[in-house]
């Protein structure tokens, strides 16, 4: 029996076990929405308030669940509103399938109403995209879309479907895509590379493991811990790698990068071996690459061959899935310990604590500091919540002070640095993993970029906790202006609205927190409340995030003040 292209879309999603769609209807995608109406008992649709909200929600959903996030948007502006999210998902390797409506195929290229060259525009920001102009293509292309989005190094896929293809009839015989002759996402692990790596690992005196998101994506957390425990090698994490290793693991030495911990940054240049796993040597991690890891040999375990030797030249490149590589390495690396070396990190930790952390978390400012609020939340939730951060100072503070205990708990916009990411991503995270607490941590700038999603949270009673760290400044830019632009605060101060009144308008429970003596009580109420809750915390206006590796400088130049 033939069905409409639109129905084929919905049935294909069901075949891919999609349980949630984030989307926003419009003219060119109406047939698909009409078909969806018959399946509301089988598939959940969340109507966001902006397409950017839909895609960030799909990203959050994907990142916590490991499944592909799905979103719908209409043609023209609906589709162009997805672009930021697509780029974000591409650079942070997040599997997302976006389905956009398109004007009827006979109107393509005519500047028709809400026509946009979505395929052209989204080309550089998708792992793959395709335009369907005939309903007979729908089944095959959608199965390809899910295969491509979720396999190898994951990424976003956009499928643009013309309105006539949505209407016209087609056969429905779904076959899950398992192979594409031009696409080979699973590298063959080469045993000689594993042997080469093991040799270097066994001889190293000061080795350091850099943990990237690849560890989480390949679900290699246990193998990684085993590797570190056999070899005794300390573990440091990138921003997106956070939560792959529990922060209280004895070999965990902290967070890398521009605002990371003192030890792992400084010791990068003392290490004689860097073992980078599922990470891509982002400039926020390396600083000046000519002065990075200057004494170290480099082993790079990476699934995407284009990342190998892209930024840092490797001595041993293991083009493989992190888990596979670690399983094989664990069989042959020698038992070892590097206690003296790890103790050097602990000395750095002590220095960092005395110079920065102690002051930050123990109330030495007049107003609350971001760090003490995060520290309190970390303690109260025992590090077991999913933390979704936006971009800026609060993001760095959350990454520094939240002590993650469980994997897939740190959802943030890392590569692209998209302000406005956290609120919608938190909704998606809660839907993707309803059993865990989800806390969105957002600045007063970022919240206003996607604040409309409070309506979505309210409508569907999505039980996310929203923490605004409010300093009435675009804090990170202000910090740079203070440090590198001679205190010239060019357009970074904000006269903000009353966030609590706004939240009242959305019928979401909320509170304003200003006084230190209320911190414990309010945080408890915030976390324990059964429902969405927005907490507007007024924090110190000109707090700086330290340590800091100044932009473009060597990691050795990390500043404690």
């Amino acid at each position, binding site marked *: 029996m033939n069905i409409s292209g639109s129905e084929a879309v919905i049935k294909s999603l069901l075949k891919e076990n999609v349980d949630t769609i984030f989307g926003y209807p419009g003219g060119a995608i109406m047939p698909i929405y009409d078909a969806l109406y018959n399946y509301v008992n089988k598939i959940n649709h969340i109507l966001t308030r902006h397409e950017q909200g839909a895609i960030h929600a799909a990203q959050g959903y994907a990142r916590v669940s490991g499944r592909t996030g799905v979103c719908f948007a209409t043609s023209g502006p609906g589709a162009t509103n997805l672009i930021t999210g697509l780029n974000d998902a591409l650079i942070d390797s997040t599997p997302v399938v976006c389905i956009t409506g398109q004007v009827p195929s006979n109107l393509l290229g005519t500047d028709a109403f809400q026509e946009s060259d979505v395929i052209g525009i989204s080309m550089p920001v998708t792992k793959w995209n395709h335009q369907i102009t005939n309903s007979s293509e729908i089944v095959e292309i959608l199965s390809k879309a899910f295969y491509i989005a979720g396999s190898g190094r994951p990424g976003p896929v956009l499928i643009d479907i013309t309105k006539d293809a949505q209407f016209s009839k087609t056969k429905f015989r779904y076959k899950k895509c398992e192979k594409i*002759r031009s696409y080979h996402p699973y590298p063959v692990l080469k045993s000689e590379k594993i042997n080469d790596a093991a040799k270097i690992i066994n001889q190293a005196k000061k080795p350091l493991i850099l943990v990237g998101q690849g560890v989480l994506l390949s679900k290699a957390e246990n193998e990684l811990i085993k590797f570190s425990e056999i070899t005794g090698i300390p573990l440091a994490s990138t921003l997106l790698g956070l939560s792959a290793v529990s922060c209280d693991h004895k070999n965990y030495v902290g967070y890398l990068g521009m605002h990371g911990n003192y030890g792992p940054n400084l010791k990068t240049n003392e290490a004689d071996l860097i073992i980078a796993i599922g990470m891509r040597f982002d400039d926020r991690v390396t600083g000046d690459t000519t002065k990075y890891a200057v004494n170290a040999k480099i082993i790079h375990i990476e699934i995407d061959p284009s990342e190998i030797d892209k930024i840092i030249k490797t001595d041993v490149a293991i083009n493989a899935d992190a888990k596979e590589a670690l399983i094989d390495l664990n069989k042959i690396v020698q038992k070892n310990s590097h206690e003296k070396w790890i103790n050097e990190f602990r000395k750095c930790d002590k220095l960092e604590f005395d110079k920065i952390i102690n002051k930050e978390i123990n109330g030495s400012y007049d107003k609350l500091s971001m760090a003490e609020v995060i520290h309190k939340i970390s303690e109260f939730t025992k590090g077991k919540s999913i933390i979704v951060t936006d971009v800026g100072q609060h993001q760095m503070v959350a990454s520094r002070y939240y002590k993650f205990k469980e994997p897939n708990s740190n959802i943030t916009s890392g590569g692209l640095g998209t302000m406005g990411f956290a609120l919608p991503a938190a909704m998606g995270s809660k839907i993707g993993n309803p059993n865990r607490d989800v806390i969105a941590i957002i600045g007063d700038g970022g919240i206003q970029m996607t604040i409309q999603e409070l309506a979505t949270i309210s409508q569907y009673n999505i039980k996310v906790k929203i923490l605004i760290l409010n300093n009435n400044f675009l804090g990170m830019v202000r910090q740079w202006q203070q440090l590198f632009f001679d205190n010239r605060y060019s357009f970074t101060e904000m006269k903000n609205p009353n966030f609590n009144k706004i939240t009242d308008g959305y019928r979401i429970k909320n509170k304003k927190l200003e006084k230190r003596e209320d911190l414990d009580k309010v945080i408890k109420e915030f976390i324990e409340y059964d429902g969405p809750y927005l907490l507007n915390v007024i924090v110190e206006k000109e707090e700086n995030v330290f340590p800091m590796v100044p932009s473009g400088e060597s990691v050795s130049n990390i500043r404690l003040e």
Partner: protein
Amino acid sequence: MKKKGLYQLKKSDNKIKEYTLSVLTEDKAGLLNHITIIFNRRKMNINSLNVSTTEITGVSRFTIVVHSSLESATKVVKQIRKLVDVLAAFLYEEHEIYYQEIALYKLSTKIFLKGDLVEKIIIRKYGAKILKIEKDHIIIQKTGTKVGTQKLYDELKKFGEILEFARSGRVALSKKKRKTVNFIKELEKTKSNKLNI
């Protein structure tokens, strides 16, 4: 001192040279755009580009010539290989390939009739071919390298104005004995990495 045991970037890797990329792809609309934006984003200029179908139905070959360092060219090739619809991408230096370009020259027939000079020198010396003689113009065709077609252009110019001139992008084949069909068949068999190329 940095000890680099297994990988040593040679100084010559940073020398700007001519490289030819040969890219086998699925015949898919938009792929040309997808490939060229990879160069664009890295501010790498494409000196010559040719796209054509191959001996295999549904498979296209892109031949792209760039001036670049080996390092940049290698990175670009890796990015091209990453595209889902790309079957394979090869990077060649000049000595690793057979390559040709084709040039067409339109001259006024009057110049041609001035004597046998044009025919003798130009056609014979350069191995060019007269494609068409019309009442008012003639078309000369030459295949060869860019240097060769340019030399002919310069010589012809001495006889008078060249009405129009067009040169194709480079087409190239590797000097290795390899059969594309077999190569594609191997790709079809495997789910793992594109073959070691």
